[in-house]
C-alpha cells in the first residue's frame, strides 16, 4: 500500500540528507509504527507519504514514494486526498473551519462528493469516532483528545485507504490517548485502513503495532520488522520491554497484559526483598517558595481554576497532572505572572508575580512553556545566550555556562531550529535558569522527547531540586512522574482532587499508574531502575 523505493530527502541548505536510501513497504491493512529518536526524520518520512515533503517544505526527494500504485512525484497532495489522510502533530494548526461538522465535511466538499452522500458519511464518522455529542461545537472549545479525533475524522470522511498520523497522542492525557488509540484500532480492524503512525510514547502504542519502522537518525539505515525483532536490539524501548529484558523474558512482552502473565516469578522474588530501601527517596524539602490562596481564574465565561490552595517548597519536584483543560497550564501561567487572578492570591517569594516587571519576575519564577521553541528567536545558540544575559542583566557567559551543564555539546553557531527537541528544551531551560529563579515551572516538558532525552531531563530536574529549587512540572507522562516527582497534584475541572506523595497518588490510579507498577502490583515499585536495584540487592542477577 505504501512503498518507499530508495528515498533520499535533502532539505535546502542542509549539510546532509535527512533520510538516506530508505526502502520499505507497508502492506494493506497494517498498523505500522515509526520509531526513532527525536530529530531522526520521522516527521519528514511521514510527510513524504502524500508529498507534503518536498512540495511544502522545499528540498529534494530522490527515489520514489508509491501510494496505492500512484507516485507522489506525479500527483500533488490535493490529488491524493482520497488515498492518503494526513494528521499533523498539532491538530489545531490544520483546522480549516471553525465548527466540528464543517471540519468533517471539508475534504468531501473539495472532492465534490454529492450532498446526500456527504450527510451520510458525516453521520457515520461521528458515530465511528464518538463525536456526535460535540458535533455543533466550535473547534476552539474542544479538549485536546476531542480535537485529535476531529482531525482524524476530517481526513477519514474523504475515504482514504491510508492514514498517516504524526504523534497523535503526545499532547494528550492518558485517558484521551486511550480514546484516540481505541478509535485507530477500530479503523484498522473494522475498515482495513492502513495506518502509519509516529509516536514517542511507545508504551501507549506498541501493543497495537503489526510492524515497526526504525529510523535511527545517526546515518544507520532505516529498518523494518515486527515489534519483537526491533526491540530485541533497539535502545529505544518502552518500560515494559526494558523490564522484560531485565528479567530475561522471552518472547519480550509488549503490553502490560503480556508482562503480567510472565511476571509471577519476578513478583515472588521481589516480595522477599525489603523494598523501601530501593525506592527513590523524596529529597529534603525546605522553606515555602510559592503559595496560592483561593486562586480563581476564568477565560471569558469558562472558569479555569476554582479556589486553588497549594504550597510549593524548596527542594521538591511536584507533578501537576490531570486531563487536558483541567487548568494545569493556567495555574503555571498564574505562578509566573502571565495572568491576573479573578480572586484569591498568588505569592512567590512573598511577591505577587503579575505585579512585577518582566525583569523582576524572572528572578523569582521561570516558566518553560509547552512549545519551548517560542522562547527562542535568535539566529544562533550564541546569540540566544548573550541576549538572555543582556535581558536578565547577568554577567556575559552566564547562560552559556548553565547550558553547558544541562546539554554540554551544543554548537554555538547552530540555529535553534536545527537543534533536536531535547537540545532546544535544554536551551530554553538554561535561558530560564540563568537568572536563578527559586521556582522553576515546566509545561509538558517531555512532549516530543525520546526516552534518552527524557532520562537526561529527569536527571537535570532532580539536580535542580537538590540545589534547593521548587520544581513544578505539568505533565501527562506517568513514566516521568514516576521517575522524578516527589509529590503529585491532580487537578480536575479547575479543582485540586488529590495532593500527596507521587508514589501513593500514581500507584492507586488505574489511569496514572506507570507500566512497571501495573505489571508488579501490588508491589510498590514504579520504575525499571528501582526493580534493577532491588534485584541487585537480592543478589539474584549480575547487575553493574
Amino acid at each position, binding site marked *: 500500500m505504501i512503498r518507499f523505493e530508495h528515498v533520499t530527502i535533502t532539505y535546502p541548505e542542509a549539510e546532509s540528507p535527512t533520510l538516506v536510501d530508505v526502502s520499505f513497504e507497508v502492506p494493506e491493512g497494517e498498523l505500522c509504527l515509526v520509531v526513532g529518536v527525536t530529530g531522526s526524520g520521522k516527521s519528514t518520512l511521514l510527510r513524504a507519504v502524500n508529498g507534503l515533503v518536498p512540495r511544502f517544505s522545499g528540498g529534494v526527494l530522490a527515489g520514489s514514494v508509491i501510494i496505492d500504485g500512484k507516485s507522489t512525484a506525479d500527483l500533488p497532495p490535493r*490529488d491524493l486526498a482520497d488515498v492518503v489522510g494526513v494528521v*499533523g502533530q498539532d491538530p489545531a494548526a*490544520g483546522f480549516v473551519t471553525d465548527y466540528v461538522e464543517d471540519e468533517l465535511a471539508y475534504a468531501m*466538499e473539495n472532492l465534490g462528493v454529492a450532498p446526500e452522500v456527504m450527510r451520510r458519511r458525516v453521520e457515520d464518522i461521528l458515530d465511528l469516532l464518538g463525536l456526535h455529542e460535540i458535533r455543533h461545537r*466550535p473547534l476552539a*472549545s474542544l479538549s485536546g483528545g476531542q480535537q485529535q479525533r476531529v482531525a482524524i475524522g476530517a481526513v477519514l470522511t*474523504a475515504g482514504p485507504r491510508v492514514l498517516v498520523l504524526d504523534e497523535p497522542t503526545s499532547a494528550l492525557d492518558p485517558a484521551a490517548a486511550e480514546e484516540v488509540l481505541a478509535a485507530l484500532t477500530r479503523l484498522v480492524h473494522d475498515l482495513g485502513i492502513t495506518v502509519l503512525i509516529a509516536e514517542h510514547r511507545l508504551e501507549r502504542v506498541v501493543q497495537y503495532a503489526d510492524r515497526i519502522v526504525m529510523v535511527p537518525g545517526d546515518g544507520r539505515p532505516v529498518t523494518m520488522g515486527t515489534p519483537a525483532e526491533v526491540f530485541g536490539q533497539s535502545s529505544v524501548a518502552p518500560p515494559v520491554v526494558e523490564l522484560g529484558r531485565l528479567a530475561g523474558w522471552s518472547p519480550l512482552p509488549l503490553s502490560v497484559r503480556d508482562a503480567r502473565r510472565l511476571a509471577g516469578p519476578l513478583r515472588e522474588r521481589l516480595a522477599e526483598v525489603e523494598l523501601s530501601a530501593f525506592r527513590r527517596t523524596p529529597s529534603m524539602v525546605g522553606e515555602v517558595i510559592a503559595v496560592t490562596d483561593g486562586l480563581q481564574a476564568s477565560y471569558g465565561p469558562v472558569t479555569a481554576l476554582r479556589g486553588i490552595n497549594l504550597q510549593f517548597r524548596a527542594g521538591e519536584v511536584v507533578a501537576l497532572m490531570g486531563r487536558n483543560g483541567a487548568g494545569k497550564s493556567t495555574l503555571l501561567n498564574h505562578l509566573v505572572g502571565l495572568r491576573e487572578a479573578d480572586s484569591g492570591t498568588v505569592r512567590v517569594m512573598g511577591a505577587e508575580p503579575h505585579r512585577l516587571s*518582566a525583569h523582576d519576575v524572572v528572578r523569582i519564577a521561570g516558566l518553560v512553556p509547552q512549545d519551548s521553541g517560542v*522562547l527562542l528567536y535568535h539566529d544562533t545558540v550564541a546569540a540566544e545566550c548573550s541576549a538572555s544575559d543582556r*535581558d536578565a542583566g547577568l554577567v556575559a557567559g552566564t547562560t552559556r555556562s548553565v547550558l553547558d551543564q544541562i546539554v554540554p555539546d551544543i554548537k554555538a553557531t547552530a540555529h535553534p531550529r536545527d537543534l533536536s527537541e531535547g537540545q532546544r528544551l535544554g536551551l530554553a531551560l538554561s535561558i530560564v535558569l540563568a537568572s536563578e529563579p527559586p521556582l522553576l515551572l515546566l509545561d509538558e516538558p517531555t512532549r516530543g522527547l525520546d526516552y534518552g532525552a527524557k532520562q537526561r531531563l529527569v536527571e537535570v530536574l532532580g539536580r535542580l531540586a537538590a540545589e534547593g529549587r521548587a520544581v513544578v512540572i505539568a505533565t501527562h507522562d506517568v513514566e516521568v512522574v514516576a521517575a522524578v516527582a516527589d509529590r503529585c497534584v491532580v487537578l480536575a475541572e479547575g479543582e485540586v482532587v488529590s495532593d500527596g506523595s507521587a508514589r501513593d497518588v500514581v500507584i492507586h490510579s488505574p489511569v496514572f499508574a506507570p507500566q512497571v507498577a501495573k505489571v508488579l502490583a501490588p508491589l510498590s515499585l514504579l520504575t525499571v531502575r528501582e526493580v534493577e536495584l532491588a534485584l541487585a540487592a537480592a543478589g539474584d542477577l549480575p547487575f553493574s
Partner: protein
Amino acid sequence: MTAPRLLHPGAWWLWAVGLAACALRTTNPVLLCLIIAVTGWVVVSRRTDVPWSRSFASFLRLGLIVIAVRLVFQILFGVRIPGTTLFSIPEVTLPSWAAGVSLGGPVTLESLMAALYQGLRLATVLACFGAATSLCSPYRMLRALPTVLYEAGVAVTVAFTFAPQAIVASRQVREARRLRGRSDRGFRAWSASALPVLEGALDRAVALAASMDSRGYGRRGGASVSQRRRSVGLVLAGLVAIAIGSYGLLDPGAPTMFRIPALAVGVAALVGSLAASGRSTERTRYRPDPWVKPEWIVSLAGLIALASFVLAGRISDALTPSTNPLEVPAVPLVAVVGLLVATLPSWFAPTPPTLATVSTSMAVAA
C-alpha cells in the same frame, strides 16, 4: 427573533468593504471616527465565539500605530505646508538630485492635521478589515470563495489568514518576551518582536495551506495540464485586472479606464478560467450558507453607506475638509444618514450561535 445562525460571510465582507470604500473617499475626521464607531458597534453586538472574533481590538491598535508613524514621517520628511508654525526641527539641505524631498524644517499645525487625517483614513480602513475578520472567520470566507480562485490555492490561503494568524502569534511572542524577562512596552520591544511575529504567522499560514492541500483544496480533478495552465493564466490576469479596477473605484482621482472597464475585464477573465478548467474543479457544499433577507439587509446596508458617500461627494466638498487654511470640518448630513443605515446589521443580522446556546440546544436535545 430568528434562530442563532452564522450570516453568509459574503454579506459581512460586502458590508465591510462598503464601509472601507466610504473611508477611502473622505478625509473628514468626524466621518472617519463615525465609521470606526459603526464597525465597533456592530462587532460588539454580532461577533462569534471563535478565536478570531477578538481581533478587532488588535486592528484598532494597529491603526493607532499607523497614525503615529504617519505623523512622525510628516514631521521628519513631510512636504512643508505654510501656516501656523508649532515648532521647528533643524533642516538638512539635501543635494540637488533629491529635490522635492525635504528633511527637517518648520512643522506647521496645517501639515500635522493633514497627516493626521490621512493616517486616520488608513486606520479606519484597517478597522473595517478587522470588523470583517471578527464578524466572520477568514476560514468561512475562504470556503465561500468562487471556485476559480481555488487555482490561486496557497497564495489565497496565506493572504486571508495571515493577519489573524499574526494576532495569535503576537500574543505568543509577547508572553515569551515576558518569560525571558524583557520589557513588553516601548518601541524597542515592538520592533524586536516584529520579526518573530511575522515568521510565526507565516509558518502558521503555510501549515494551514499544507493541511488544506492534503485535504483536496484546489484539486485538479480531470483537467489536463494545458487546460490547467490556461485557467491559471486567466485567473492571474483576472485578479490583476480586478485589483486595478477596485483601486480605480476606490480612488476618485484614477483615470476612467481603470474603473468599470478594468473590473469587467477581470470578471470576464475569471469566468473564462472556469470554462478553461473544463468545470472540473466543481465542488459541493455540505450545508450551504443561505442568502436570504438578513444577508440582503447587511450587504445593502454597506452599499447604501457607500452610495451616500458618493452622493455627499457630489453635493459638497465636505468629504475632504480643507487643512490649508485649517477649518472645522463640516458634517454632511447625507453621509451621516448613510452610516446610520450601516448600523442596521446589529439588529437585523441573526445572532451567531455561542457556546452557551450550543450547549443548551444540546441539553434540550438530550
